[in-house]
């Protein structure tokens, strides 16, 4: 196949896999309502905790921003990392394998669709949180804020693609491992409080999850005064680290997909269902 045809197939695959998430997931309107409403319940509870202990109003902003970003982490766990497990369970994985296209394109399509669908939900949580709890927000630099956000997403979905490859080998473990990565990551990445509170070394270790860096940078840009005492790294350094993480994760995802697919073929795990 020549390069043009290959590129065409790649792009069609990306769109084909993104389609159910870009279009399909929006068809059931109640899902979107629940996807916004459920994180809001958690956000509201944490906002009231901060109010009960007399925290400054900026902490409400920390929680609302963290709550909105949980949508992305949940999407990574359940719709990226675990996706190939779901596909295996539904009998689609073998179709993916025999399809005359790149598996990376399939992963990329999952990521593109996931970013789109999740952004709608995360924005819903953010806007509702800002309106309901009257969150003060005054970004020092909107372009920097957008840049941090986009780089966070690239690195995060790169990690998601890598995790999808690793999860290829698993059966029911995939479900449990994804479940295990919820609260502990909410904790070490500082979804609901500045990550610096955990200490520099823990925050550094947690930076393997790009949201750790992204949240810290976004909070610095939104609440510079409040974050003076809680800053983990400077925004510039965090942007650089996010860019490196994005490139590394995408490269590793490509390598891991090949390796784990070959391993799963050898061990007969690609078609093992109902585990």
């Amino acid at each position, binding site marked *: 196949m020549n390069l043009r045809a290959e590129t065409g197939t790649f792009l069609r695959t990306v769109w084909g896999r993104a389609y159910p998430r870009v279009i399909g997931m929006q068809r059931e309107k109640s*899902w979107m309502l629940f996807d916004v409403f*459920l994180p809001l*319940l958690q956000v*509201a*509870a944490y906002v009231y905790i*901060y109010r*009960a*202990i007399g*925290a400054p109003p900026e902490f409400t902003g920390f929680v609302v921003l963290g709550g909105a970003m949980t949508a992305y982490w949940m999407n990574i766990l359940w719709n990226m990392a675990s996706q190939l497990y779901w596909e295996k369970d539904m009998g689609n994985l073998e179709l993916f394998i025999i399809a005359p296209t790149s598996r990376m394109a399939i992963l990329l399509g999952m990521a593109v669709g996931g970013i789109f669908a999740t952004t709608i939900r995360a924005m819903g949580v953010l806007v509702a949180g800002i309106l309901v709890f009257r969150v003060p927000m005054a970004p020092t630099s909107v372009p920097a804020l957008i840049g941090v956000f986009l780089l966070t997403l690239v690195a995060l979905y790169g990690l998601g693609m890598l995790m999808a490859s690793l999860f290829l080998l698993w059966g029911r473990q995939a479900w449990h491992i994804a479940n295990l990565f919820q609260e502990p990551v909410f904790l070490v990445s500082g*979804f609901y409080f500045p990550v610096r509170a955990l200490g520099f070394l823990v925050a550094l270790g947690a930076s393997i999850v790009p949201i750790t860096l992204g949240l810290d940078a976004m909070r610095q840009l939104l609440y510079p005064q409040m974050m003076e005492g809680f800053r983990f790294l400077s925004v510039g350094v965090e942007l650089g680290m996010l860019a490196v993480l994005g490139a590394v994760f995408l490269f590793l995802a490509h390598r891991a997909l090949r390796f784990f697919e070959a391993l799963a073929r050898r061990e007969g795990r690609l078609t093992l269902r109902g585990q």
Partner: protein
Amino acid sequence: MTARVRGGESWRSLRVAAWLGWQIESNWTDPFLFAVYSVVKPVAGALILVFMYLVVARGGLENHLFPYIFVGNAFYIYVGAVLMGISWVVIDDREHYGMLKYMYAAPLNIYTYLLGRGAAQTAIATVATTITLLFGVGVLGIQIPPGQVDWGLLAGALVLGLAALAFMGLLLGGATLLTARHNYFIGQGVAGALYLLSGVVFPLDVLPAPLQAVGKGLPVTYWLEALRRSVLGDGGNEALRSLSTGTVVLILALSTVVLAVASVLFFRWAERIAHRRGLLDMQTMH
């Protein structure tokens, strides 16, 4: 069928379902990883609250609100586990394993079968709650002197509350029988609403008046109030301070009875509808 045969069938269903639930929950990995998995999640959840508190309190854990938050959060582990543990079985057996139709074809009591499946989750939640509380006492220095704990109240409130949660789980199970792709949201929504409205991690008094009124109508509010009074000696909610402990337990007991009746009636109704509409073997590929 005689009452004795029916009773035997119900007991067998409960026992076998509990064993099956335990196998499904635990046999996906080795015991060590399973133990880590069972403990890490709840402890991490508790630590989120600890650090939220520490960031604002700048290191001090002496405030009376801290034990309130910690104990409430520890016992809330049961809410998610029991509610979701029971209601999720319907979707798991119907769509994942495709076994629900066989359950209805077999000589078992589906009601006690669902309770049995939830029992495994309850056992895991008991371990997680205990470890979280021990962590709070041992590491964070929360004062719960065993000599001052009202063990009778603790045991009574725990049993009543777990029964109430199990019946709520059956209500959700009934709703799950009739829904295709909303079961996860329904369970999470109810658990999330209870987290917000039942004074789990902050006193009811902090909520706006209308939400406070809703909270006062929920059994979980009285369950947590009774548990805190038994463990900490004080429920911590100004809004419930005028109620004696006996009244709190009575309200919990009455609401448990109401939930029991409502769950049986609703589940039977849902079953009838599901039979009629052919929903027992529905496959939504979800």
